Protein backbone atom coordinates (compact mmCIF):
# COMPACT_ATOMS: atom_id res chain seq x y z
CA UNK A 1 0.00 0.00 0.00
CA UNK A 2 1.47 3.34 -0.98
CA UNK A 3 1.45 6.14 1.57
CA UNK A 4 -0.85 8.74 -0.02
CA UNK A 5 -3.61 11.02 0.96
CA UNK A 6 -4.86 11.20 -2.61
CA UNK A 7 -8.25 9.67 -3.03
CA UNK A 8 -9.18 10.01 0.62
CA UNK A 9 -11.66 12.82 0.42
CA UNK A 10 -12.76 14.47 3.64
CA UNK A 11 -16.41 15.39 3.56
CA UNK A 12 -16.71 16.83 7.04
CA UNK A 13 -14.61 19.03 9.27
CA UNK A 14 -14.70 16.24 11.85
CA UNK A 15 -12.94 13.90 9.41
CA UNK A 16 -10.44 16.62 8.60
CA UNK A 17 -9.74 17.35 12.23
CA UNK A 18 -8.95 13.82 13.37
CA UNK A 19 -5.58 13.00 14.88
CA UNK A 20 -4.33 10.90 11.99
CA UNK A 21 -6.03 12.16 8.84
CA UNK A 22 -4.19 9.70 6.59
CA UNK A 23 -5.66 6.17 6.79
CA UNK A 24 -2.28 4.47 6.57
CA UNK A 25 -1.19 6.37 9.67
CA UNK A 26 -4.30 5.26 11.49
CA UNK A 27 -3.70 1.62 10.67
CA UNK A 28 -0.04 1.89 11.57
CA UNK A 29 -0.77 3.39 14.97
CA UNK A 30 -3.45 0.80 15.69
CA UNK A 31 -1.01 -1.94 14.73
CA UNK A 32 1.66 -0.49 17.01
CA UNK A 33 -0.82 -0.26 19.90
CA UNK A 34 -2.04 -3.82 19.33
CA UNK A 35 1.55 -5.02 19.24
CA UNK A 36 2.41 -3.09 22.39
CA UNK A 37 -0.56 -4.48 24.31
CA UNK A 38 -0.65 -8.04 22.94
CA UNK A 39 2.57 -8.81 21.10
CA UNK A 40 5.22 -7.43 23.44
CA UNK A 41 3.99 -9.36 26.50
CA UNK A 42 4.50 -12.60 24.61
CA UNK A 43 7.95 -11.75 23.32
CA UNK A 44 9.73 -9.69 25.95
CA UNK A 45 11.64 -11.14 28.88
CA UNK A 46 11.96 -9.75 32.36
CA UNK A 47 15.18 -7.84 31.67
CA UNK A 48 13.63 -6.07 28.71
CA UNK A 49 10.63 -5.03 30.77
CA UNK A 50 12.62 -3.82 33.76
CA UNK A 51 15.56 -2.14 32.07
CA UNK A 52 14.08 -0.75 28.90
CA UNK A 53 10.36 -0.85 28.37
CA UNK A 54 9.05 0.38 31.73
CA UNK A 55 11.58 3.26 32.00
CA UNK A 56 10.86 4.15 28.39
CA UNK A 57 7.11 4.33 28.99
CA UNK A 58 7.33 6.37 32.17
CA UNK A 59 9.96 8.76 30.84
CA UNK A 60 7.89 9.20 27.67
CA UNK A 61 5.04 10.36 29.86
CA UNK A 62 7.35 12.78 31.67
CA UNK A 63 8.80 13.99 28.35
CA UNK A 64 5.25 14.62 27.11
CA UNK A 65 4.71 16.83 30.14
CA UNK A 66 7.91 18.76 29.53
CA UNK A 67 7.10 19.08 25.84
CA UNK A 68 3.70 20.62 26.55
CA UNK A 69 5.40 23.34 28.53
CA UNK A 70 8.67 23.85 26.68
CA UNK A 71 7.73 22.79 23.17
CA UNK A 72 4.18 24.07 22.95
CA UNK A 73 4.07 27.01 25.33
CA UNK A 74 7.71 28.05 24.94
CA UNK A 75 8.39 28.32 28.67
CA UNK A 76 11.70 26.72 29.49
CA UNK A 77 11.95 24.64 32.65
CA UNK A 78 14.78 23.03 34.54
CA UNK A 79 12.52 21.87 37.36
CA UNK A 80 10.93 18.85 35.71
CA UNK A 81 12.57 16.45 38.16
CA UNK A 82 11.14 18.37 41.09
CA UNK A 83 7.61 17.98 39.78
CA UNK A 84 8.15 14.26 39.30
CA UNK A 85 9.33 14.14 42.90
CA UNK A 86 6.29 16.07 44.10
CA UNK A 87 4.01 13.63 42.28
CA UNK A 88 5.84 10.65 43.75
CA UNK A 89 5.92 11.89 47.33
CA UNK A 90 2.39 13.28 47.25
CA UNK A 91 1.04 9.98 45.93
CA UNK A 92 3.10 8.14 48.55
CA UNK A 93 1.62 10.25 51.34
CA UNK A 94 -1.91 9.77 50.05
CA UNK A 95 -1.29 6.00 49.98
CA UNK A 96 0.07 5.68 53.50
CA UNK A 97 -2.09 8.26 55.23
CA UNK A 98 -5.46 7.30 53.84
CA UNK A 99 -6.66 3.74 54.34
CA UNK A 100 -7.64 1.77 51.25
CA UNK A 101 -6.50 4.49 48.90
CA UNK A 102 -6.87 3.13 45.36
CA UNK A 103 -3.63 3.24 43.40
CA UNK A 104 -5.07 5.12 40.43
CA UNK A 105 -6.62 7.76 42.67
CA UNK A 106 -3.29 8.22 44.44
CA UNK A 107 -1.54 8.66 41.09
CA UNK A 108 -4.06 11.28 40.01
CA UNK A 109 -3.90 13.09 43.34
CA UNK A 110 -0.12 13.07 43.11
CA UNK A 111 -0.46 14.63 39.68
CA UNK A 112 -2.89 17.25 40.99
CA UNK A 113 -0.60 18.16 43.87
CA UNK A 114 2.21 18.59 41.38
CA UNK A 115 -0.04 20.71 39.15
CA UNK A 116 -0.94 23.03 42.04
CA UNK A 117 2.70 23.53 42.94
CA UNK A 118 3.53 23.88 39.25
CA UNK A 119 1.20 26.87 39.08
CA UNK A 120 2.98 28.49 42.02
CA UNK A 121 6.42 27.94 40.54
CA UNK A 122 5.15 29.00 37.12
CA UNK A 123 4.26 32.51 38.25
CA UNK A 124 7.76 33.90 37.53
CA UNK A 125 7.03 33.12 33.85
CA UNK A 126 4.60 36.05 33.87
CA UNK A 127 7.52 38.41 34.36
CA UNK A 128 10.67 36.74 33.07
CA UNK A 129 11.44 34.56 30.12
CA UNK A 130 14.20 32.50 28.54
CA UNK A 131 17.29 31.90 30.63
CA UNK A 132 15.93 33.88 33.56
CA UNK A 133 12.90 31.63 33.71
CA UNK A 134 15.18 28.60 33.51
CA UNK A 135 16.97 29.86 36.61
CA UNK A 136 13.68 30.50 38.39
CA UNK A 137 12.51 26.95 37.71
CA UNK A 138 15.89 25.70 38.87
CA UNK A 139 14.92 27.15 42.22
CA UNK A 140 11.98 24.74 42.29
CA UNK A 141 14.36 21.86 41.69
CA UNK A 142 16.70 22.77 44.53
CA UNK A 143 13.93 23.70 46.92
CA UNK A 144 12.10 20.40 46.55
CA UNK A 145 15.30 18.35 46.59
CA UNK A 146 15.98 19.98 49.92
CA UNK A 147 12.42 19.65 51.20
CA UNK A 148 12.13 15.92 50.56
CA UNK A 149 15.50 15.30 52.13
CA UNK A 150 15.06 17.44 55.23
CA UNK A 151 11.36 17.61 56.03
CA UNK A 152 10.85 14.20 57.56
CA UNK A 153 7.07 14.33 57.43
CA UNK A 154 7.14 13.81 53.64
CA UNK A 155 9.04 10.56 54.02
CA UNK A 156 6.94 9.44 57.00
CA UNK A 157 9.97 9.73 59.31
CA UNK A 158 11.67 6.80 57.63
CA UNK A 159 15.17 6.63 59.22
CA UNK A 160 17.03 6.03 55.96
CA UNK A 161 15.10 8.68 54.05
CA UNK A 162 14.03 6.14 51.49
CA UNK A 163 10.37 5.23 51.09
CA UNK A 164 8.62 2.30 49.48
CA UNK A 165 5.17 1.10 48.57
CA UNK A 166 4.14 -2.52 48.42
CA UNK A 167 1.05 -4.46 47.37
CA UNK A 168 -0.05 -2.38 44.46
CA UNK A 169 -3.32 -3.27 42.86
CA UNK A 170 -5.83 -1.70 40.49
CA UNK A 171 -9.46 -2.84 40.76
CA UNK A 172 -8.36 -6.17 42.18
CA UNK A 173 -5.62 -6.62 39.55
CA UNK A 174 -2.43 -7.18 41.49
CA UNK A 175 0.49 -5.26 40.00
CA UNK A 176 3.26 -7.66 40.76
CA UNK A 177 5.18 -9.06 37.81
CA UNK A 178 7.11 -6.87 35.36
CA UNK A 179 4.44 -7.67 32.79
CA UNK A 180 1.69 -6.21 35.01
CA UNK A 181 3.77 -3.12 35.59
CA UNK A 182 4.43 -2.76 31.89
CA UNK A 183 0.75 -3.03 31.02
CA UNK A 184 -0.26 -0.50 33.66
CA UNK A 185 2.33 2.01 32.46
CA UNK A 186 1.36 1.42 28.85
CA UNK A 187 -2.32 1.99 29.60
CA UNK A 188 -1.62 5.19 31.52
CA UNK A 189 0.72 6.46 28.81
CA UNK A 190 -1.75 5.71 26.00
CA UNK A 191 -4.50 7.58 27.80
CA UNK A 192 -2.30 10.56 28.65
CA UNK A 193 -0.83 10.79 25.16
CA UNK A 194 -4.37 10.98 23.83
CA UNK A 195 -5.28 13.71 26.31
CA UNK A 196 -2.14 15.63 25.40
CA UNK A 197 -2.92 15.40 21.71
CA UNK A 198 -6.48 16.59 22.32
CA UNK A 199 -5.21 19.57 24.25
CA UNK A 200 -2.68 20.65 21.67
CA UNK A 201 -5.08 20.34 18.75
CA UNK A 202 -7.77 22.27 20.59
CA UNK A 203 -8.23 25.87 21.64
CA UNK A 204 -5.90 25.70 24.63
CA UNK A 205 -3.08 24.26 22.49
CA UNK A 206 -3.46 27.12 20.06
CA UNK A 207 -3.30 29.56 22.95
CA UNK A 208 -0.06 27.99 24.16
CA UNK A 209 1.51 28.07 20.72
CA UNK A 210 0.34 31.64 20.18
CA UNK A 211 2.07 32.70 23.39
CA UNK A 212 5.18 30.80 22.30
CA UNK A 213 5.31 32.28 18.80
CA UNK A 214 4.30 35.90 19.32
CA UNK A 215 3.06 36.96 22.71
CA UNK A 216 2.10 40.54 21.82
CA UNK A 217 -0.13 39.41 18.97
CA UNK A 218 -1.60 36.72 21.22
CA UNK A 219 -2.63 39.32 23.77
CA UNK A 220 -4.15 41.50 21.10
CA UNK A 221 -6.49 38.72 19.97
CA UNK A 222 -7.63 38.25 23.52
CA UNK A 223 -5.41 35.50 24.91
CA UNK A 224 -4.57 36.15 28.53
CA UNK A 225 -0.88 35.34 28.98
CA UNK A 226 -1.44 34.52 32.63
CA UNK A 227 -4.06 31.88 31.92
CA UNK A 228 -2.17 30.39 28.99
CA UNK A 229 1.17 30.16 30.76
CA UNK A 230 -0.11 28.96 34.10
CA UNK A 231 -2.38 26.38 32.51
CA UNK A 232 0.63 25.08 30.59
CA UNK A 233 2.57 24.85 33.84
CA UNK A 234 -0.34 23.09 35.53
CA UNK A 235 -0.91 20.52 32.80
CA UNK A 236 2.80 19.91 32.36
CA UNK A 237 3.30 19.45 36.10
CA UNK A 238 0.30 17.14 36.23
CA UNK A 239 1.85 14.88 33.60
CA UNK A 240 5.19 15.04 35.38
CA UNK A 241 3.58 14.30 38.72
CA UNK A 242 1.84 11.20 37.44
CA UNK A 243 5.04 10.10 35.72
CA UNK A 244 6.97 10.68 38.95
CA UNK A 245 4.50 8.62 40.95
CA UNK A 246 4.74 5.80 38.43
CA UNK A 247 8.52 6.05 38.47
CA UNK A 248 8.60 5.71 42.25
CA UNK A 249 5.83 3.16 42.72
CA UNK A 250 6.23 0.98 39.68
CA UNK A 251 9.75 1.31 38.37
CA UNK A 252 11.81 1.85 41.52
CA UNK A 253 9.55 0.43 44.21
CA UNK A 254 11.53 2.18 46.87
CA UNK A 255 13.24 5.48 46.30
CA UNK A 256 14.93 8.48 47.82
CA UNK A 257 15.06 12.12 46.68
CA UNK A 258 18.18 11.52 44.57
CA UNK A 259 15.93 9.66 42.10
CA UNK A 260 14.50 13.00 41.04
CA UNK A 261 17.59 15.18 41.05
CA UNK A 262 18.63 17.88 38.60
CA UNK A 263 20.07 15.12 36.40
CA UNK A 264 16.54 13.92 35.76
CA UNK A 265 15.39 17.43 34.83
CA UNK A 266 18.21 17.83 32.33
CA UNK A 267 17.61 14.37 30.94
CA UNK A 268 13.96 15.23 30.29
CA UNK A 269 14.89 18.52 28.67
CA UNK A 270 17.35 16.70 26.38
CA UNK A 271 14.62 14.25 25.47
CA UNK A 272 12.26 16.91 24.19
CA UNK A 273 15.01 18.85 22.43
CA UNK A 274 16.34 15.77 20.67
CA UNK A 275 12.91 14.30 20.08
CA UNK A 276 11.43 17.52 18.77
CA UNK A 277 9.99 20.54 20.52
CA UNK A 278 6.30 20.96 19.92
CA UNK A 279 5.62 17.42 18.83
CA UNK A 280 3.82 14.66 20.72
CA UNK A 281 5.53 12.03 18.62
CA UNK A 282 8.86 13.70 19.30
CA UNK A 283 8.49 13.09 23.04
CA UNK A 284 8.44 9.35 22.37
CA UNK A 285 11.39 9.52 20.01
CA UNK A 286 13.38 11.52 22.52
CA UNK A 287 12.59 9.15 25.38
CA UNK A 288 13.50 6.15 23.26
CA UNK A 289 16.76 7.75 22.19
CA UNK A 290 17.82 8.66 25.71
CA UNK A 291 16.72 5.41 27.36
CA UNK A 292 17.85 2.94 24.78
CA UNK A 293 21.04 4.45 23.44
CA UNK A 294 23.12 4.15 26.63
CA UNK A 295 22.02 0.54 27.06
CA UNK A 296 22.80 -0.16 23.46
CA UNK A 297 26.26 1.42 23.76
CA UNK A 298 26.85 -0.52 26.96
CA UNK A 299 26.29 -3.80 25.14
CA UNK A 300 27.73 -2.80 21.81
CA UNK A 301 31.09 -1.36 22.88
CA UNK A 302 32.48 -4.51 24.57
CA UNK A 303 31.35 -6.50 21.57
CA UNK A 304 33.11 -4.07 19.24
CA UNK A 305 36.20 -4.23 21.44
CA UNK A 306 36.14 -8.00 21.32
CA UNK A 307 35.92 -7.86 17.56
CA UNK A 308 39.23 -6.05 17.23
CA UNK A 309 40.79 -8.04 20.02
CA UNK A 310 40.60 -5.38 22.73
CA UNK A 311 39.35 -6.22 26.16
CA UNK A 312 37.55 -3.07 27.37
CA UNK A 313 37.08 -2.74 31.11
CA UNK A 314 33.66 -1.92 32.54
CA UNK A 315 34.87 1.49 33.69
CA UNK A 316 36.17 2.35 30.23
CA UNK A 317 32.87 1.28 28.73
CA UNK A 318 30.87 3.56 30.96
CA UNK A 319 33.21 6.50 30.23
CA UNK A 320 33.06 5.87 26.52
CA UNK A 321 29.30 5.55 26.79
CA UNK A 322 29.06 9.06 28.20
CA UNK A 323 31.38 10.51 25.59
CA UNK A 324 29.72 8.88 22.62
CA UNK A 325 26.30 9.71 23.97
CA UNK A 326 27.26 13.37 24.34
CA UNK A 327 28.81 13.47 20.91
CA UNK A 328 25.69 11.95 19.37
CA UNK A 329 23.48 14.57 21.02
CA UNK A 330 25.65 17.34 19.60
CA UNK A 331 25.70 15.64 16.21
CA UNK A 332 21.93 15.32 16.10
CA UNK A 333 21.37 18.90 17.13
CA UNK A 334 23.68 20.15 14.38
CA UNK A 335 22.23 17.93 11.67
CA UNK A 336 18.59 18.43 12.66
CA UNK A 337 18.00 21.19 15.21
CA UNK A 338 14.28 20.50 15.14
CA UNK A 339 14.76 17.01 16.45
CA UNK A 340 13.89 13.50 15.43
CA UNK A 341 10.24 14.41 14.94
CA UNK A 342 11.24 16.72 12.08
CA UNK A 343 13.26 13.95 10.44
CA UNK A 344 10.19 11.76 10.77
CA UNK A 345 7.84 14.29 9.19
CA UNK A 346 10.33 15.05 6.40
CA UNK A 347 10.50 11.34 5.68
CA UNK A 348 6.70 11.16 5.59
CA UNK A 349 6.48 14.09 3.21
CA UNK A 350 9.00 12.48 0.90
CA UNK A 351 7.11 9.23 1.12
CA UNK A 352 3.90 10.96 0.07
CA UNK A 353 5.48 12.01 -3.21
CA UNK A 354 7.62 8.95 -3.73
CA UNK A 355 8.80 7.89 -6.27
CA UNK A 356 8.70 11.43 -7.63
CA UNK A 357 11.14 14.00 -6.30
CA UNK A 358 8.62 16.90 -6.30
Amino acid sequence: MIYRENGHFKTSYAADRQIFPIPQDRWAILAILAFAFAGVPLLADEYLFRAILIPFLILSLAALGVNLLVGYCGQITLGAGAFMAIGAYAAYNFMIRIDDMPLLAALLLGGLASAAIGIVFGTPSLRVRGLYLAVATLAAQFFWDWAFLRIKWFTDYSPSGSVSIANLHVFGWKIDSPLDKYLLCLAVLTLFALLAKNLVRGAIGRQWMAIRDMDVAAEVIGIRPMYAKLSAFAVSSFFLGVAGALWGFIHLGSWEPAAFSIDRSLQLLFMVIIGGLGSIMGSFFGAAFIVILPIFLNQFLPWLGGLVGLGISTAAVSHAEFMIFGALIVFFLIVEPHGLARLWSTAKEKLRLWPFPH
Partner: protein
Amino acid sequence: MAREIGPVILDLKNLSLSFGGVKALTDVSFDVCEHEIRAIIGPNGAGKSSMLNVINGVYRPQEGEIVLRGGHFTNMTPYRAAIAGFARTFQNIALFKGMSVLDNIMTGRNLKMKCSLLQQAFWFGPARREELAHRARVEEIIDFLEIQHIRKTPVGRLPYGLQKRVDLGRALAMEPRILLLDEPMAGMNVEEKQDMSRFILDVNDQFGTTIVLIEHDMGVVMDLSDRVVVLDYGRKIGDGTPDEVRANPEVIKAYLGASH
Protein backbone atom coordinates in the same frame (compact mmCIF):
# COMPACT_ATOMS: atom_id res chain seq x y z
CA MET B 1 -22.65 51.02 -1.45
CA ALA B 2 -24.78 49.24 1.06
CA ARG B 3 -23.13 50.72 4.07
CA GLU B 4 -24.27 53.92 5.64
CA ILE B 5 -21.95 55.89 7.85
CA GLY B 6 -23.42 55.97 11.32
CA PRO B 7 -22.85 57.96 14.49
CA VAL B 8 -19.51 58.26 16.28
CA ILE B 9 -18.49 54.87 17.65
CA LEU B 10 -14.99 55.60 18.87
CA ASP B 11 -13.96 58.93 20.31
CA LEU B 12 -10.33 59.59 21.21
CA LYS B 13 -9.93 62.53 23.52
CA ASN B 14 -6.72 64.45 24.15
CA LEU B 15 -4.40 61.47 24.05
CA SER B 16 -0.80 62.06 25.07
CA LEU B 17 1.86 59.39 25.16
CA SER B 18 5.52 59.74 25.95
CA PHE B 19 8.40 57.35 26.47
CA GLY B 20 10.64 59.08 28.97
CA GLY B 21 11.44 62.40 27.35
CA VAL B 22 10.28 61.37 23.89
CA LYS B 23 6.79 62.54 23.10
CA ALA B 24 5.14 60.09 20.76
CA LEU B 25 1.69 61.70 20.86
CA THR B 26 0.72 65.15 22.08
CA ASP B 27 -2.89 65.97 22.76
CA VAL B 28 -4.35 64.10 19.82
CA SER B 29 -8.13 63.92 19.48
CA PHE B 30 -10.25 62.49 16.71
CA ASP B 31 -13.31 60.37 16.30
CA VAL B 32 -14.33 57.41 14.20
CA CYS B 33 -17.88 56.88 12.96
CA GLU B 34 -19.56 53.53 12.63
CA HIS B 35 -19.00 51.75 9.29
CA GLU B 36 -16.51 54.29 8.02
CA ILE B 37 -12.96 53.77 6.80
CA ARG B 38 -10.74 56.15 8.69
CA ALA B 39 -7.12 56.56 7.66
CA ILE B 40 -4.23 57.80 9.76
CA ILE B 41 -1.37 59.16 7.71
CA GLY B 42 1.81 61.02 8.42
CA PRO B 43 5.55 60.94 7.76
CA ASN B 44 7.78 58.34 9.41
CA GLY B 45 7.88 58.68 13.16
CA ALA B 46 4.72 60.74 13.27
CA GLY B 47 3.18 58.47 15.91
CA LYS B 48 0.75 56.53 13.72
CA SER B 49 1.59 53.08 15.05
CA SER B 50 1.72 54.47 18.58
CA MET B 51 -1.80 55.74 17.98
CA LEU B 52 -3.05 52.24 17.13
CA ASN B 53 -1.14 50.79 20.05
CA VAL B 54 -2.87 53.24 22.35
CA ILE B 55 -6.29 52.45 20.91
CA ASN B 56 -6.01 48.74 21.59
CA GLY B 57 -4.20 48.99 24.87
CA VAL B 58 -0.68 47.88 23.98
CA TYR B 59 0.57 51.27 25.17
CA ARG B 60 -1.08 53.19 27.95
CA PRO B 61 -1.36 56.93 27.33
CA GLN B 62 -0.34 59.30 30.13
CA GLU B 63 -3.31 61.52 29.42
CA GLY B 64 -6.60 61.36 27.64
CA GLU B 65 -9.32 58.79 27.34
CA ILE B 66 -10.89 56.48 24.85
CA VAL B 67 -14.66 56.51 24.55
CA LEU B 68 -16.07 53.47 22.82
CA ARG B 69 -19.83 53.45 22.26
CA GLY B 70 -20.32 55.57 25.38
CA GLY B 71 -18.00 53.45 27.53
CA HIS B 72 -14.98 55.25 28.95
CA PHE B 73 -11.64 53.48 28.98
CA THR B 74 -8.81 55.19 30.81
CA ASN B 75 -6.68 52.08 31.19
CA MET B 76 -7.27 49.97 28.14
CA THR B 77 -5.47 46.61 28.01
CA PRO B 78 -5.14 44.43 24.90
CA TYR B 79 -7.47 41.89 26.47
CA ARG B 80 -10.17 44.46 27.24
CA ALA B 81 -9.78 45.90 23.78
CA ALA B 82 -10.27 42.45 22.27
CA ILE B 83 -13.45 41.93 24.30
CA ALA B 84 -14.67 45.40 23.38
CA GLY B 85 -14.51 44.41 19.72
CA PHE B 86 -11.15 45.65 18.47
CA ALA B 87 -9.03 43.52 16.18
CA ARG B 88 -5.83 44.52 14.50
CA THR B 89 -3.15 43.53 12.06
CA PHE B 90 0.50 44.36 12.43
CA GLN B 91 2.98 46.34 10.40
CA ASN B 92 5.69 43.69 10.64
CA ILE B 93 3.46 40.63 10.44
CA ALA B 94 2.98 39.07 13.85
CA LEU B 95 1.63 35.68 12.87
CA PHE B 96 2.23 32.54 14.90
CA LYS B 97 5.06 31.12 12.80
CA GLY B 98 4.90 27.55 13.99
CA MET B 99 1.21 27.09 13.23
CA SER B 100 -0.70 26.45 10.03
CA VAL B 101 -2.83 29.10 8.34
CA LEU B 102 -5.94 27.36 9.62
CA ASP B 103 -4.71 27.29 13.21
CA ASN B 104 -3.65 30.93 13.03
CA ILE B 105 -7.12 31.98 11.97
CA MET B 106 -8.72 29.58 14.47
CA THR B 107 -6.75 31.34 17.18
CA GLY B 108 -8.73 34.45 16.32
CA ARG B 109 -11.85 32.60 17.53
CA ASN B 110 -10.25 32.17 20.92
CA LEU B 111 -12.50 34.60 22.79
CA LYS B 112 -15.60 32.88 21.49
CA MET B 113 -14.54 29.38 22.52
CA LYS B 114 -15.77 28.58 25.98
CA CYS B 115 -14.97 24.92 26.63
CA SER B 116 -12.89 24.21 29.73
CA LEU B 117 -9.50 22.62 29.71
CA LEU B 118 -10.91 19.32 30.93
CA GLN B 119 -13.58 19.24 28.23
CA GLN B 120 -10.92 19.91 25.63
CA ALA B 121 -8.71 17.15 26.99
CA PHE B 122 -11.52 14.63 26.45
CA TRP B 123 -12.37 16.10 23.05
CA PHE B 124 -15.57 14.17 22.42
CA GLY B 125 -18.73 16.07 23.26
CA PRO B 126 -18.86 19.83 23.77
CA ALA B 127 -15.24 20.57 22.83
CA ARG B 128 -15.55 18.77 19.52
CA ARG B 129 -18.86 20.43 18.68
CA GLU B 130 -17.43 23.84 19.51
CA GLU B 131 -14.27 23.23 17.50
CA LEU B 132 -16.22 22.14 14.44
CA ALA B 133 -18.69 25.02 14.65
CA HIS B 134 -15.84 27.53 14.76
CA ARG B 135 -14.03 25.68 12.03
CA ALA B 136 -17.03 26.28 9.79
CA ARG B 137 -16.88 30.02 10.49
CA VAL B 138 -13.14 30.08 9.86
CA GLU B 139 -13.65 28.33 6.54
CA GLU B 140 -15.97 31.17 5.52
CA ILE B 141 -13.15 33.62 6.20
CA ILE B 142 -10.72 31.42 4.29
CA ASP B 143 -13.12 31.46 1.34
CA PHE B 144 -13.56 35.20 1.63
CA LEU B 145 -9.81 35.81 1.51
CA GLU B 146 -9.28 33.22 -1.22
CA ILE B 147 -6.62 31.27 0.64
CA GLN B 148 -8.20 27.80 0.47
CA HIS B 149 -5.16 26.27 -1.17
CA ILE B 150 -2.80 27.14 1.68
CA ARG B 151 -4.96 26.40 4.69
CA LYS B 152 -2.75 23.59 5.94
CA THR B 153 0.57 25.32 5.20
CA PRO B 154 2.68 26.58 8.12
CA VAL B 155 2.62 30.38 7.84
CA GLY B 156 6.39 30.64 8.05
CA ARG B 157 6.61 29.12 4.57
CA LEU B 158 4.25 31.58 2.90
CA PRO B 159 5.31 34.58 0.82
CA TYR B 160 4.90 37.99 2.38
CA GLY B 161 1.74 39.03 0.59
CA LEU B 162 -0.11 35.91 1.66
CA GLN B 163 1.10 36.29 5.23
CA LYS B 164 -0.46 39.74 5.28
CA ARG B 165 -3.69 38.19 4.10
CA VAL B 166 -3.58 35.55 6.84
CA ASP B 167 -2.93 38.31 9.36
CA LEU B 168 -6.11 40.00 8.15
CA GLY B 169 -7.94 36.67 8.34
CA ARG B 170 -6.95 36.17 11.95
CA ALA B 171 -8.26 39.63 12.80
CA LEU B 172 -11.50 38.98 10.90
CA ALA B 173 -12.02 35.73 12.79
CA MET B 174 -12.60 37.82 15.88
CA GLU B 175 -15.64 39.37 14.17
CA PRO B 176 -14.52 42.80 15.28
CA ARG B 177 -16.63 45.94 15.45
CA ILE B 178 -13.54 47.98 14.71
CA LEU B 179 -10.62 46.72 12.69
CA LEU B 180 -7.25 48.41 13.09
CA LEU B 181 -4.92 47.87 10.13
CA ASP B 182 -1.29 48.88 10.48
CA GLU B 183 0.12 49.38 6.99
CA PRO B 184 -1.79 46.53 5.36
CA MET B 185 -0.09 47.19 2.03
CA ALA B 186 3.47 47.86 3.06
CA GLY B 187 5.94 46.05 0.83
CA MET B 188 3.35 44.72 -1.59
CA ASN B 189 3.37 44.78 -5.36
CA VAL B 190 0.57 46.34 -7.37
CA GLU B 191 -1.56 43.20 -7.71
CA GLU B 192 -1.26 42.43 -4.03
CA LYS B 193 -2.23 45.98 -3.18
CA GLN B 194 -5.26 45.72 -5.41
CA ASP B 195 -6.28 42.46 -3.75
CA MET B 196 -5.83 43.89 -0.30
CA SER B 197 -7.77 47.06 -1.16
CA ARG B 198 -10.60 44.90 -2.44
CA PHE B 199 -10.62 42.85 0.77
CA ILE B 200 -10.68 45.96 2.92
CA LEU B 201 -13.58 47.44 0.97
CA ASP B 202 -15.42 44.11 1.04
CA VAL B 203 -14.99 43.72 4.77
CA ASN B 204 -16.30 47.21 5.28
CA ASP B 205 -19.15 46.65 2.87
CA GLN B 206 -20.28 43.11 3.71
CA PHE B 207 -19.68 42.96 7.45
CA GLY B 208 -20.16 46.67 8.17
CA THR B 209 -16.88 46.69 10.05
CA THR B 210 -15.48 50.06 10.98
CA ILE B 211 -11.88 50.31 9.80
CA VAL B 212 -9.03 52.45 11.03
CA LEU B 213 -5.98 52.08 8.84
CA ILE B 214 -2.47 53.41 8.59
CA GLU B 215 -1.03 53.48 5.12
CA HIS B 216 1.78 55.17 3.26
CA ASP B 217 0.49 54.70 -0.26
CA MET B 218 -1.38 57.98 -0.78
CA GLY B 219 -3.26 56.74 -3.81
CA VAL B 220 -4.69 53.88 -1.79
CA VAL B 221 -5.47 56.05 1.22
CA MET B 222 -7.27 58.71 -0.75
CA ASP B 223 -9.30 56.14 -2.68
CA LEU B 224 -10.30 53.93 0.22
CA SER B 225 -10.94 56.18 3.12
CA ASP B 226 -13.91 58.31 4.05
CA ARG B 227 -11.97 60.57 6.35
CA VAL B 228 -8.27 61.03 6.98
CA VAL B 229 -6.41 62.24 10.04
CA VAL B 230 -2.85 63.50 9.59
CA LEU B 231 -0.21 63.28 12.28
CA ASP B 232 3.22 64.88 12.34
CA TYR B 233 5.65 64.72 15.25
CA GLY B 234 2.90 63.33 17.44
CA ARG B 235 0.48 66.18 16.79
CA LYS B 236 -2.65 66.24 14.72
CA ILE B 237 -2.14 68.63 11.81
CA GLY B 238 -5.11 67.79 9.63
CA ASP B 239 -8.45 65.99 9.71
CA GLY B 240 -11.19 65.68 7.12
CA THR B 241 -12.18 64.11 3.85
CA PRO B 242 -9.37 63.13 1.47
CA ASP B 243 -9.95 66.23 -0.60
CA GLU B 244 -9.83 68.55 2.40
CA VAL B 245 -6.65 66.94 3.63
CA ARG B 246 -5.04 67.14 0.24
CA ALA B 247 -5.67 70.88 0.15
CA ASN B 248 -4.53 71.51 3.73
CA PRO B 249 -1.38 73.70 3.67
CA GLU B 250 -0.05 72.20 6.94
CA VAL B 251 -0.23 68.73 5.46
CA ILE B 252 1.52 69.78 2.29
CA LYS B 253 4.23 71.37 4.41
CA ALA B 254 4.73 68.25 6.46
CA TYR B 255 5.03 66.02 3.43
CA LEU B 256 6.85 68.24 0.97
CA GLY B 257 8.60 70.66 3.28
CA ALA B 258 7.96 74.40 3.25
CA SER B 259 9.82 76.84 1.08
CA HIS B 260 11.76 79.38 3.04
